[in-house]
């Protein structure tokens, strides 16, 4: 059993993680506004409040590693290097979108950055992640797969089958459950009788760990420990990150959550938690954070202009890349 400590974070890393969380939040809020105004056709599943999970888990992954975000893990995109402009192109379905207009931003893949597109089927990515990890291991690499999904997904059969299969195959997968206490409008307390999804790890003989999902450094460290184990063949890990979604599931949803619960979680804003720490260490002050946000807003403004001016995909694109060879025979 390996006990190698996680690669420790430098001050630079901590500031960068803060920046990524700020980027994610600013992007989400702006994009939602533009969506409400009709400027951006696609809505978002806002991750506001949950930024520490995706940033912490993806930060420090290597080239050759893969991630599979849930429909809410927009931080996986930012942390692996996707640009604001790229995601806006995806949302607007322009010809320059990574999928050529075929997919939304949250179901887009960026293979060169090690990001796979998830499907819209909650939990459906978990078996795919197991297979990616299995493939990476078969190829003799020490690459890993980090797969994100919610508490709701943990009740899907695919969660069960895939975690069990990953365990028996010793697949180098890290299963990151973003337990934000809700699946759309249904509270986790209605959807399961347990409080900790971590309780399920034992059923697969898998290492499981509960992580403070509001603390990006804690998420990072726990992930890196799991990654190190995975890299040297010791198999998968289930990380349950306790977190909370500060906004509704999706723009059209009106939600009615207990005020006390909201207050409690709003007091644990992941950006604030890290920012406070960085301020105490003298690494960052409020002005610096404002600057980070301003930089994102500037980039957003220039990006939206470019995206709005961009060409839409050629109608022919609807018929491409269904099969390797575009053929009359295949589509008739």
């Amino acid at each position, binding site marked *: 059993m390996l006990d190698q400590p996680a690669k420790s974070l430098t001050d630079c890393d901590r500031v960068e993680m803060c920046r990524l969380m700020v980027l994610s939040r600013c992007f989400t809020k702006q994009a939602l506004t533009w969506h409400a105004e009709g400027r951006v056709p696609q809505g978002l599943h806002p991750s506001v409040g949950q930024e520490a999970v995706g940033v912490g888990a993806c930060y420090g992954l290597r080239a050759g590693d893969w991630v599979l975000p849930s429909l809410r893990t927009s931080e996986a995109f930012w942390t692996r290097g996707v640009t604001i402009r790229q995601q806006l192109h995806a949302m607007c*379905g322009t010809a320059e979108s990574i999928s050529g207009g*075929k997919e939304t931003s949250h*179901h887009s893949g960026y293979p060169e950055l090690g990001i796979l597109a998830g499907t819209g089927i909650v939990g459906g990515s978990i078996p795919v992640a197991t297979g990616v990890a299995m493939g990476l291991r078969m190829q003799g690499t020490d690459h890993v797969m980090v797969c994100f999904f919610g508490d*709701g997904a943990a*009740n*899907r059969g695919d969660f069960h089958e895939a975690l069990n299969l990953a365990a028996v195959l010793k697949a180098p997968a890290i299963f990151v459950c973003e337990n934000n206490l809700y699946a759309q409008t249904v509270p986790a307390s209605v959807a399961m009788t347990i409080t900790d999804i971590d309780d399920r790890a034992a059923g697969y003989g898998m290492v499981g760990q509960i992580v403070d999902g509001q603390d990006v450094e804690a998420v990072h460290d726990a992930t890196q420990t799991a990654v190190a184990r995975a890299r040297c063949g010791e198999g998968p890990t289930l990380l349950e990150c306790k977190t909370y979604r500060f906004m509704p599931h999706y723009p059209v949803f009106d939600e009615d959550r207990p005020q006390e619960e909201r207050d409690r979680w709003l007091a644990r804003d992941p950006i604030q938690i890290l920012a406070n720490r960085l301020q105490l260490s003298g690494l960052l002050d409020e002005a610096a954070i404002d600057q980070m946000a301003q930089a994102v807003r500037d980039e957003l403004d220039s990006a939206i202009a470019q995206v709005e001016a961009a060409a*839409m995909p050629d109608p022919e694109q609807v*018929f491409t890349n269904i099969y390797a060879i575009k053929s009359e025979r295949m589509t008739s």
Partner: protein
Amino acid sequence: MRELRGNQALCEALAQEMANDPRVFVIGEDVAAHGGVYRVTENLLEQFGPDRVIDSPICESALVGAGVGAALVGMRPVVEIQFTDLITIAMDQIVNSAAKARYVHDGAMHVPMVVRTLNLGKGSVYASQALEAWFTHVPGLKVVMPTDPHDAKGLLLSAIRDPDPVIFFESKALYAMRGPVPSESYTVPFDKANVCREGSDATVVSWGSTVPMAEEAADRLTAEGVSIEVIALRALVPFDRQTVVESVCKTGRLVVVHEAVRRGGFGAEVVASIADSDAFEHLRAPIMRVANPGVPVPHSAALHKFALPSVDDLVAAIRRTMSYD
């Protein structure tokens, strides 16, 4: 008559039948406290309480399986699957547990369950599939697909009272459509297609959300002096073949339109059932299908219109059929 939107008509059907029959209950994701993503189960929780209006975990396979079990012991479950793409998860329970229970028990047990779901259209790759054809291929299932609020209410009431499992496909277009709906409880039978308008030159067969397209195409062509008979199937199983055969015997031309992918769609079944019927010898033109040409429905508005059949496509197909004589 009072007008309702489709989702309200469906909700009224649920409420009336729950009041009428204590065996009826509703289960699904977000159906209780939230009243359904598209408000089809709005206020049911308040009216009937948490034992009969149940918010479930995300577990489409177990949901349908549990519906089967409850139905077997005499309940009347209405299971909601949030959209059709997700029904792929529940295929075993639908095809093996639900469809075959009456058969293997030789009639001693049966599964009076309704699975409601949403053929979305115009959503995105994973939220726009139309898979009704699959279910028509499975003996033991009925497949229903209302077009307007009136039929939606009456067909859902028929479905809940039906002694066999019914897969009930709704659509966003239906939810948004307003139309007259009687306030009392009433049923619309599955096995009578709706001849929306009579005509003599060509027959158009449609269902679900392509019916309004067929009517619009008919309008356009009437202006050109072409007389179109528009048939809306209310159910694919049972399929009202007789009405289609009689129409084609009269018109000699047939065009079928659906949102689902053409290859392997139920349109092929409609064509095949005519190609082997008394109408065959009356055919004056090849039988055309207008449908998704075989592509996932993409996200970009610039693209997704090419994935879905349009009124223009339908008009062009009818013109093509009219070019034969």
